[in-house]
């Protein structure tokens, strides 16, 4: 459903930096795809390009065979720092995008409440983000994105600003939502620098090298779901170790230290 072909992104400044260098991949229907790589490999930029909020220099990004030309209501995103509007309550935050897209207020409110309930936050509908915990904020972010009924959900390091316990709960919840047959959103693309997290969640992991960002490896994760039961399996550790060694090799090749490579278990 989504195809990226020979994508090149450069940041021009005093020195031109090639952030993404000829990246190609395809996203299958109903897939949970994860892109991992060290800081500064251009993975977040890649996600923003798909979301239609960042321009690129060369190559093609096709959604259902048509080039992406800007933000698309069928592709929604959740952010590392949640991106909630501080001046709106949880409910209003979910409701606003619906209204912007022409749904009338009453109907938008109904849908917003429904999705807040799906993420377990109906009691906090009238609370401002300021008074919500990090995990709750990200739940609002997820509800806001899903309420738009997109086909693709993009997630930019969605758990990296949460504490590990909250993150772990939320990971399982996201997987539950992804598997929910009643939801119209079936395709998830997540960017992460946490390798175990990627292996825990994804069907397929794309590994990116640091600047210039290239895809150096594609790993199919064939561990059966639910994976909570398999996080101690040797297979799990083999895949994690393999991906880490690929990243380390890529880092060594570009003579840069690998920073922030978290190897936490889920």
């Amino acid at each position, binding site marked *: 459903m989504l195809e990226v072909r020979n994508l090149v992104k450069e940041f021009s400044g005093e020195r031109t930096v090639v952030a993404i260098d000829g990246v190609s991949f395809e996203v299958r229907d109903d897939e949970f795809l994860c892109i991992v790589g060290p800081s500064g490999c251009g993975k977040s930029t890649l996600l*923003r390009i798909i979301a239609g909020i960042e321009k690129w220099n060369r190559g093609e990004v096709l959604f259902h065979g048509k080039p992406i030309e800007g933000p698309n209501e069928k592709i929604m995103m959740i952010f590392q720092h949640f991106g909630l509007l501080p001046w709106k309550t949880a409910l209003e935050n979910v409701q606003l*995008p619906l209204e912007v897209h022409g749904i009338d207020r009453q109907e938008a409110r109904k849908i917003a409440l429904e999705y807040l309930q799906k993420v377990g936050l109906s009691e906090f509908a009238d609370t401002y983000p*300021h008074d919500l915990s990090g995990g709750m904020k990200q739940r609002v972010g997820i509800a806001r994105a899903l309420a738009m009924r997109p086909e693709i959900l993009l997630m930019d390091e969605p758990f990296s600003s949460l504490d590990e316990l909250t993150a772990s709960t939320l990971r399982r919840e996201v997987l539950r939502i992804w598997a929910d047959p009643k939801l119209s959103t079936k395709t998830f693309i997540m960017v992460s620098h946490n390798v175990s997290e990627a292996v825990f969640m994804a069907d397929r992991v794309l590994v990116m090298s640091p600047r210039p960002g290239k895809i150096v490896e594609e790993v199919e994760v064939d561990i059966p779901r639910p994976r909570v039961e398999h996080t101690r399996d040797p297979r799990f550790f083999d895949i994690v170790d393999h991906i880490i060694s690929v990243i380390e090799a890529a880092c060594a090749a570009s003579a840069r230290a690998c920073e922030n490579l978290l190897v936490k278990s889920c």
Partner: protein
Amino acid sequence: MPRTQNFGYAFGFLAILLIYVLVLSLVKNPEIGNLPYYTFRTFARITATYIISLVTGLFFGLLAATYKTASTILVPLFDVLQSIPILGYFPAAIIFFISAFQGAEIGLELAAMLLLYTSMEWAIFFGIIGAVKNIPANIVEAAKSFNLEGLSYIRHVVLPAIVPALISGSTLAWGDGWFFMIAAEYITYGGVTYSLPGLGSYLAKAAYEYGDMNLAVVLLVIITALVMYINFLTWHRLTEKAGSGAYKPIFASTWSRRFALSGVRRLAPVRRIGMSFRFRHSVLSVSKKRMYTKIEKGVALMALIFLVLVVVMLAQPNVPSGDEIVRSLTIPEMANLPFYTLATLARLTIAYFVSLAIALTMGILAAERKGFALVFYPIYDIGQSVPILALFPILFISISQVFGGRLGLEITSITMLVADMIWYLFLNIVAAVKTIPDEIREVSQLLGMKGLKRIRHIILPAIMPAVVTGSMLSWATGWNTVIFSEYMPYGSEVLSLPGLGSFLDKAAYQEGNTVLLGFLLLVMTCLVIAVDRFVWRKLLRKIERYGAEVM
């Protein structure tokens, strides 16, 4: 880069030199030969006052920052002091200094410096307080764990942390000094004009005594050029230097990405831009908003009343008896007091809304088109440097050609108010627009918000705290300027509009009625505080509901 910069400094110096040579040789005015001397005197006056402000600001600021007891008294006291119309107290100060030195120039000089001081001190003091409050809790804890205490704590933690605030506070203070220069150098009291040698008094004389508008404009241009050049030479360079570290200047010439999400808040936690959302999710809110307890407010108010009483007593060697007070206050014009109050309030309100409309438009333009923001800084720089009080004769002549009589005068008065009030709003709003986090911008982009929807749901709420802080300050400064904008010497006559400001001026300058002066000041101060409490504080509380923070 440095080479072109040095070239710029040299070029600027030569340009100013050339202006002086041209003016000295071309302008025909008996006093023109004194221009370099006047420049020197004004420059020395402002510099000396600035140094005093800096030293006392540092002293009180550090005192309030390190000792809790000092802070509970000093901060509310300074807050009340800075929100009352300083110019209104000026006559009382002059009466005191003139009588104390029997009209000698030194007395006038001290009075002028006191006026300048009262306009320069606040930015520095509150800048320091704000910066100390914004030292991240982890740094304070780290310092404690290494046993940094007392002087070594101040030296290694506090001083480095307040450098950016000192620089931006100094920039504002310096600008304010030049702003009030004319008022300080050229004073009419009880029908007599006192003037101190300086650029401000020369400008006033050119306009009022010689009636030479060309000379007034030339002097205005010289002053503006001089202020800008000095700014570039000093504050801009310092700001850039301070900005190279962890702190960023408010108007960094590049729009740095991710800037708003970085842990350290922007430079210049000065009163003028002391408020912003804390978008960061982490629990940084150690510096809880500054709200005083009733007792603190009471103490501050008592201290203030005491101060005013002392000044009035000193100014009036013979304490007025009850009879005298009654006689001074029961003049026929007192019947007009409610009307005067309403007239002044109306003028200020109109000027405020005009300023707000312009500042909001510019702020939104800056938010939507990054290019605009880069243009706005120079506008601010020039606008802030022009001494507004000097604008009056020039403004009036041009406006009265379109609108005759009262109306022309009203428009001139309101224009002057706008010219003074708009900068606080403008500076606050543009700074707030710059700190809207990228993620918020991205969200609005992703959700396809454009045009009015984007302005209504994203830009306006994001800059709301800045609008409220800007409004508080612009309103306070408006009260200050209204005293001048309603009562303007023009040639040999005085043009005045009915209002509290002109009433106060008449009481002070024409009749020398100290009791009435004191009474009117009290009325004005009460009005300022009432508006602050019932309008601005209410708005602040509304915004705080969703987590915006007051410095």
